């Protein structure tokens, strides 16, 4: 089975959900016309990234009664969507979230687990952290979603892999940093190496959408990619440019790679469990 995945990298209007919804609808329409089965939007694609006090006023509740979310649900009837937004729960906690929408329904919402709060980042000042990571079933097989800092921690992709995910969908709003002699920023190189490593180590597909544009002095570097289970690059969007980049993946490659390289078969999860229990002193 072959599917086409669209990576939508673009700039957002900071805190203006309606303007950003329009940008989503344009790209959904374009991706649909180009035969894409799934379109992946960056982290906080409906709001912009450095929200600070705008976090609470740009939040939404992911159900039909919300007009913005409802429009996205409708749009997901003939193309699957992964969108980024501020998720307000019933008790007024605010999360950085990505939702997977398909056939007019929400299949899964992932609340960002790791909120970077160091250096240039201040996320946990404004947001609550998610406390779970789960794979879920889609019409393309089992999938896992992570958001930016989530995949700077190897444990989360690992858990999704064990939970059955064969396609990892990553969204980020990664500020560019680390200018040296290299033609790419350190941050771009680091993220791409990591994504390639996850694809190869877990023999899965890794599709990553990163945004572009600027917020005050921060630049976002784009460079969205898809890697296949051999760790090979399927497609890469340009750095710093607005783009709708479409890559086709062949899900049968999972069979071919895993019969050659049965890393998943050989993974000793009980050993991992035992050692984690020992390390965490669970039986003390």
């Amino acid at each position, binding site marked *: 089975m072959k599917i086409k995945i669209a990576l939508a990298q673009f700039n957002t209007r900071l805190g203006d959900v309606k303007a950003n919804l329009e940008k989503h609808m344009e790209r959904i329409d374009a991706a649909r016309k180009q035969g894409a089965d799934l379109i992946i939007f960056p982290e906080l694609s409906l709001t912009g990234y450095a929200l600070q006090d*705008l976090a609470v006023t740009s939040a939404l509740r992911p159900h039909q009664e919300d007009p913005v979310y409802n429009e996205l649900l409708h749009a997901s009837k003939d193309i699957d969507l992964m969108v980024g937004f501020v998720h307000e729960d019933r008790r007024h906690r605010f999360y950085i979230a990505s939702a997977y929408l398909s056939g007019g329904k929400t299949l899964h919402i992932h609340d960002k687990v790791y909120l970077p709060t160091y250096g240039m980042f201040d996320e946990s000042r404004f947001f609550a952290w998610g406390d779970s990571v789960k794979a879920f079933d889609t019409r393309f097989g089992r999938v896992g979603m992570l958001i930016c800092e989530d995949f700077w921690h190897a444990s989360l992709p690992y858990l999704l892999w064990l939970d059955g995910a064969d396609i990892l969908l990553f969204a980020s709003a990664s500020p560019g940093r680390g*200018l040296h002699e*290299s033609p790419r920023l350190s941050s771009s190189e680091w993220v791409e190496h990591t994504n390639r490593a996850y694809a190869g180590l877990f023999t899965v597909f890794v599709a990553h959408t990163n945004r572009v544009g600027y917020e*005050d002095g921060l630049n976002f570097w784009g460079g969205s990619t898809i890697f296949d289970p051999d760790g090979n690059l399927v497609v890469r969007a340009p750095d710093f440019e607005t783009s709708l980049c479409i890559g086709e993946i062949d899900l049968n490659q999972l069979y071919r790679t895993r019969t050659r390289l049965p890393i998943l078969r050989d993974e000793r999860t009980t050993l991992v469990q035992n050692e984690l229990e020992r390390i965490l002193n669970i039986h003390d």
Partner: protein
Amino acid sequence: MIDLKINTTLAEKILTGFIKTELNRVGFNKTLMGLSGGLDSAVSLYLSAKALGPENVLAVRMPYKTSPQETLDDAQLMIDDLGVQSMTVEITDMVDPLIHYYDDMDKRRAGNIMARMRMIVLYDQSVPFNGLVMGTSNKSEMLLGYSTVFGDSAAALQPIGDLYKTQVRQLARAIGVPEKIIQKAPSADLWAGQTDEGELGFTYEAVDKLLYLLVDQRYPPESCVEEGFDPDFIEKVMRRMRQNHFKRIMPPIAKLSQRTIGYDFLYLRDWGT
């Protein structure tokens, strides 16, 4: 290892994108800046012309009566090279009344008056030109506090504020700034014969390496000594950084209410854009 070499193609890409986007999103497509004939304003000018087109950039020469003709000629060379818009506003008649108003005026105060007058000229011209004032400060001088607060430090955007002086020089070469400008001794031109390095007491070449370790690489001072830097030099630079920090931040607001600007009323400049 201290390696201050930068990929100038990448720097140009990011900084021209920054200038264009950050002007456009607040409703502008033009910029203006003072053009001294020195390196920093040259780099801001060349980046702005590339980002916005030369017709959308206004270079303002603002000499004082003691400014050497050579600096005016150097500025003109770049104006002609790029085809940007330009104007010359001599500030002598504006600043001399204030300079001569006090008997105890000294050259540092006079220099600050000139820097602030140039700021007033630029912010005034920003209205008829319908553009925003582009900053020309680099990371070395910002960290060392080698600037006049509310003078040359006043700007809407700071495109080269995260590049050390020695990196600005690399970028200058790559984006076509004339070699004559690049080779000149850095000077604020506030009085005859003034040079940055003479006034600071060390070279940018030396201090940029130290700042890179202290700031970018988070070296403690004792590790900088191990790397071969003189302890007195380190102390002098760290003191300058500390004492001039006020120039890099907004003035503190005395907190009284439940929600105070800067502490718990937090928005980017780009709010809603």
